[in-house]
């Protein structure tokens, strides 16, 4: 049998998920020099994953990476299949039978819980849901966040936690010029939040946010970041970590935090308190969350491997809105192995492995579902290059003839599945831009799948506009 990727025998690959990991995997395949046929399968009618639904609306420059994704999608060897979901419309078994290789790039949309008393009280939310809500993610469009509260507590030490603080504290006139979802803009325009606490278990050196995001907290009109100088005193191990490779952002973060700590408190501005070495231990309230109990933490251990342990000292804060951002988790995919500890797919060099450590031939992973929720957009490009390098090394074992795209189209047509291709997405994009124009926004996103499908003007699956699908 011919090795796929050679003349007349295209390497047929399905990439599942059209966020950064998926697009960069597609790009690496397109640039491999082989004959390829790539189908990019996306659960929603719209592409770009967390660039659309995760990156904050006021970070337009970061969002402009979609220009690169669009160029990748325009390659005639790639086809976008929006509104098609692994597990719902196609089983893993079906997909594996259709393609020489499947690259899973579905991300990590589930959130980690705190595991403390009162977590299920009204007013306590996953920060990821709040992000999805202001970014118009369909699953989050109907959520409600009570912004009539005066004190918000955000738990976490990464860029998501900072994004959430910044959106809560941003002047609505700034947000009005972004593609923030209309329902979120309306709620934020009425917000009564006048105090924000950002709470994290570890110290300033171990915090995961980037200096760029941290610095932005100091530029919010009407708000003042406040840090207790004592929280910035470093133990010997933290001091040693400042020069370790895994802590490359820490020295600048520390400089920025020292700047915040040295600025005298200005009562004319609303406080945004940054608490380090503090872990939430309980949430309480009569009908909804009213208070949060924190316990002071002390770090100990070798540089690079410190852990936080409670000191016994407690602090209680009022809390009308609590948003936790203590990590994302991938969700298991039907028919594929899953590592519940990491919340990701088990793999070796990007090749999926089963519980016995055996490689699942033809199955690969990239992005957050592979390595967990770490890194920024560009991190996924290097990661996808690594995964595709593994795939290309396996070509000799992937020589079973496969139906590829023709098989997928036939399957979707038989099921009367409504598929959004890239032209369909462009129609959605254009309609969103038109909706935004009236209000001076770059776009007013559709937040309902039905509205996206309507804008895409999809009839039925391509090549299947027959009576059988006339419903």
């Amino acid at each position: 049998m011919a090795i796929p990727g050679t003349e007349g025998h295209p390497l047929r690959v399905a990439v599942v998920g059209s966020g950064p990991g998926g697009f960069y995997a597609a790009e690496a395949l397109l640039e491999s020099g082989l004959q390829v046929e790539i189908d990019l399968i996306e659960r929603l009618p719209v592409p770009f994953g967390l660039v659309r639904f995760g990156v904050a609306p006021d970070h337009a420059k970061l969002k402009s990476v979609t220009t690169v994704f669009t160029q990748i999608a325009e390659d005639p060897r790639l086809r976008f299949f929006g509104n098609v979901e692994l597990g719902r419309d196609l089983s893993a078994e079906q997909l594996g039978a259709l393609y020489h290789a499947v690259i899973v790039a579905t991300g990590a949309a589930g959130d980690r819980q705190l595991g403390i008393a009162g977590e299920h009280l009204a007013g306590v939310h996953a920060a990821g849901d709040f992000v999805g809500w202001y970014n118009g993610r369909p699953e989050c469009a109907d959520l409600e966040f009570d912004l009539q509260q005066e004190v918000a507590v955000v738990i976490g030490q990464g860029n998501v936690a900072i994004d959430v603080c910044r959106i809560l504290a941003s002047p609505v006139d700034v947000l009005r010029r972004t593609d923030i979802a209309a329902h979120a803009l309306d709620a934020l325009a009425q917000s009564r939040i006048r105090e924000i606490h950002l709470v994290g278990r570890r110290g300033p050196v171990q915090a995961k946010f980037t200096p760029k995001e941290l610095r932005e907290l100091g530029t919010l009109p009407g708000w003042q970041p406040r840090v207790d100088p004592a929280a910035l005193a470093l133990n010997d191990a933290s001091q040693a970590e400042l020069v370790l490779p895994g802590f490359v952002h820490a020295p600048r973060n520390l400089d920025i935090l020292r700047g915040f700590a040295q600025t005298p408190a200005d009562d004319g501005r609303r406080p945004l308190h940054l608490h380090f070495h503090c872990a939430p231990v309980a949430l309480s309230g009569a009908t909804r969350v009213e208070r949060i109990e924190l316990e002071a933490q002390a770090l100990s251990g070798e540089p690079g491997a410190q852990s936080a342990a409670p000191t016994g000292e407690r602090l209680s804060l009022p809390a009308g809105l609590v948003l936790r951002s203590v990590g994302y988790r991938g969700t298991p995919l039907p028919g594929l192995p899953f590592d519940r500890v990491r919340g990701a797919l088990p793999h070796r060099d990007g090749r999926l492995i089963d519980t016995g450590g055996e490689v699942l031939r033809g199955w690969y992973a990239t992005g957050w579902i592979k390595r967990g929720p770490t890194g920024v957009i560009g991190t996924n490009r290097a990661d996808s290059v690594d995964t595709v390098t593994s795939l290309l090394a396996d070509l000799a074992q992937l020589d079973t003839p496969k139906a590829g795209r023709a098989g997928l189209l036939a399957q979707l047509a038989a099921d009367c599945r409504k598929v959004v291709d890239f032209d369909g997405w462009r129609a959605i994009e254009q309609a969103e831009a038109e909706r935004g124009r009236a209000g001076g926004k770059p776009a007013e996103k559709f937040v309902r799948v039905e509205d996206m499908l309507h804008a895409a003007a999809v009839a039925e699956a391509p090549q299947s506009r027959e009576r059988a699908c006339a419903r």
Partner: protein
Amino acid sequence: MTHVVTDNCRGCRYTDCVASCPVACFHVNEVRVYIDPAVCIDCSACIPACPVHAIVEEFDLADDQQHWIRINAEAAQRYPVIRARLPPLDGADARRQQLGL
């Protein structure tokens, strides 16, 4: 705002940064790489990727490093884009040690 490649890159050219650039903003010559400020989207993925800490956000440049902004902008016009990792230059590891990294 942009990111800039400073002097540590010269003679190393590890190019780990290039693989993690989402927008192909790196340009390369015989001795080092540069960032095109018109293309960089400030994602910062390249900063931790660089083994010799050559890449800095414009905002964080020391006063005596400001000239790198102009050097990167001009060189990016002159040299070709690099999108995939290259082997480091001969002597890269020696220079890295010399830099104390």
